[in-house]
């Protein structure tokens, strides 16, 4: 099984790619054949991905979540699982064109990391809490990803003329800045003084391309083909309603119990712990705002996008922030 699980991983990646492309075609031409082909691709990818993960779990003797390849791969799998759950709950097939690219992006990111199987865990990870803590957290993040896809679509559909391009430019500027700053160990000014102006500008331009692409697409009548705003709002809410308890119990509660079990500290202000707290706080704000304060639509969608951005930052932040949760 040593090689088979990686082979199946590549099959899943290919299937998600095909699904993403065909979903885009369905979105453009609205032909049912494309829809069923895309869903078939997603299903095939999901089955291959599931067998790959289970195969590796059997091979290594524990849940495969002990390096970035395994974790991000499981994250991509959870995104697709979240998609199926939401489709089953809401019974709307319209979400695929927006979730498939997220799943595909995640699995591509996973593919960039070394795929060695860790049969022997480091002492700190030799605990059943690993399965509970990480698995529940990643399932929650998968549901958040579906909510994110719905919220981004919501923002696209409800954007004013030029709004996507403007928001995209600002976001790209920030993302490029944060990326460079993190890459250079959090000293933004030193980065720019050190001659990183060109990468910063190039990064901003590259990141802006999808936003401008979306803007052009909207200007060409795509807006009408996007799902109904109320449905998108409901899907985003459902995704968060499912992800929030899973993430909260898995990342925060189970994490704290495990930390007490292993280190004698329930909470240690480790960067990953704080990151999980930030994610929890943002989604808490979303739920409070939506259910008690009447916040729906754009403002709720912005909070949903921010929550997912924080989850991604928390996931990869360890690469530069270090801490007790850093992957080797």
């Amino acid at each position, binding site marked *: 099984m040593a090689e088979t699980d990686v082979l199946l991983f590549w099959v899943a990646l290919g299937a998600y790619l095909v699904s993403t492309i065909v979903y885009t075609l369905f979105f453009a031409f609205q032909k049912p054949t494309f829809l069923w082909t895309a869903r078939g691709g997603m299903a095939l990818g999901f089955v291959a991905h599931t067998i790959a993960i289970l195969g590796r779990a059997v091979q290594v003797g524990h849940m495969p979540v002990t390096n970035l390849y395994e974790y991000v791969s499981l994250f991509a799998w959870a995104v697709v699982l979240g998609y199926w759950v939401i489709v089953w709950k809401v019974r709307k097939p319209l979400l695929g064109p927006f979730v498939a690219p997220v799943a595909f992006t995640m699995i591509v990111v996973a593919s960039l990391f070394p795929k060695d199987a860790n049969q*022997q865990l480091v002492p700190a990870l030799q605990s059943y809490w690993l399965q509970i803590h990480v698995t529940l957290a990643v399932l929650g993040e998968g549901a958040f990803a579906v909510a994110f896809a719905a919220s981004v679509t919501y923002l696209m559909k409800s954007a004013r003329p030029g709004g996507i391009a403007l928001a995209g430019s600002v976001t790209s500027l920030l993302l490029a800045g944060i990326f460079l700053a993190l890459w250079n160990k959090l000293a933004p000014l030193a980065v720019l003084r050190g001659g990183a102006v060109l990468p910063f500008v190039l990064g901003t331009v590259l990141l802006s391309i999808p936003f401008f692409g979306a803007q052009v697409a909207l200007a060409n009548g795509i807006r009408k083909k996007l799902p109904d705003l109320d449905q998108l709002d409901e899907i985003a809410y459902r995704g968060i309603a499912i992800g929030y*308890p899973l993430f909260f119990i898995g990342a925060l509660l189970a994490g704290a119990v495990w930390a007490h*079990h292993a280190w004698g*500290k329930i909470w240690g202000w480790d960067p990953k712990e704080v990151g999980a707290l930030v994610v929890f*706080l943002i989604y808490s704000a979303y739920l*409070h705002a939506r259910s008690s304060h*009447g916040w729906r639509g754009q403002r709720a969608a912005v909070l949903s996008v921010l929550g997912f951005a924080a989850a991604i930052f928390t996931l990869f932040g360890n690469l530069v*922030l270090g801490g007790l949760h850093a992957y080797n």
Partner: protein
Amino acid sequence: MNAGAEALAPEGAGRPTGPASRAWHWFVSIKVGLILLLIITILSFLGMLVPQGGDEAQYVEKYGQAGASLVLALGLDNAYHSWWYQVALLVLAVNITACTIWRMPRAVRTAFRRQWLEPDRIQALALKKSAVVAASPDQTASRVRDALKSGRYSVQERQSGEALLFSATRGGISRLVATIVHIGLVVTLLGGVYGGRSGWSKLVFGAPGETVASPDGTFDVRVDAFKVLTNADGSIKDYISSLTVLEGGREVLKQDVEVNKYLHHRKVNIYQSSYSALPERFASARLRVQWPDGRVSEPFDAPYGEAVEVPGSPMKATVESFAADFRIDTETRRAYSASLEPRNPAIRVNLVEGERDLGGQWVFLNRGGVHPHEGAPQVEFLAYEPLYATGLDFAHNPAVPIVWAGFALMAVGVLPMMVLMTHRRIWVAVMPDGGRARLVAGGAVNKHREIFQREFYRLMDGVESGKEEAGRGGN
């Protein structure tokens, strides 16, 4: 947005009148809670970006002098223990407590009190249906009963004049979900504060054979053995400390402690936290002797403090001292280890040939002697096997059960979210209308109105038509 809910329990009840009352209402509002959540989110994020607990030199290296000064002045180097973070947390805790106390009575009332609405009040609800049913009042009542029960509603009925009233409710407990989560959060925070004030932890190192005292003085712990197990590739497999708990010199408990397996005794937990090579002792050294005439002995192992024979000679060698980070005190001329790190390992070896003491010499690892004696055999220090002391973290936290209770409450509170649990209420009045029945129905839900609306109309349309399509609850 909540169909009918406003008409049943108007927010306007108990509106503030004076400035104090207005201030209180403002403080317990969701808006303030939201603002506090976002403020703490931003503050937490700031602390995440700046490495915590560093010293000034580290920040100067990272951010320059001005940046480091700013970090230190704002307390960002210790953000989560800074006054501004603690104040924000405290205000949030007070806000959550106040909101919970303020809203709980109404939440409990709404969850458990069954309300009865007369037809005119039912018709005032936002979500309603009115129809004349082509069936007798008894048949219609039976349909209503079946429909509501198949929708998993708790149904009660009573006669009011000519009208038969139904009051159906489902998921009332969901009204308490937010309250339960908030109580859990407050309990957890209180536990955290209590634990922070009354708990303690201390890292204690103990070499095998040593006995260390628990920091609270209630018992002692003897380290029987400490093993670092490795895999074939040299990576660490496990750290195991074999411990014996002693009370008044009497053995009361023996247990192996590992990273995920702590020892609990007298409300103190002992964790396998770290380990350190002893700076002035080791298990065994690998040595070789070279004679002035060029002969060289086979390498041999010399356990610390034991006299061992030098292969191919009548000599014996004894390692008398070890310093992992060798230094000489210039005043006393005494050698010592300047740190715990093996930066400059050296041993003092004494050679004896028969009854003749050839004297001792300090030898550096793979670098020869400090002051080699001319014409005397020279010892080479090739390698050594360190002796490790285990780092045991003694911890006492009386608040742990409180925190677990808080966690349990929060977990119980958030789980119903996954199934979008809502408090659904339906009121129906069935009245005679000639030979037929007049149906007046209305519903109210605390959230997810769209989902409830679909269910309400499905159920009531089923009653009107007499078809058995009602009842699949839905969500």
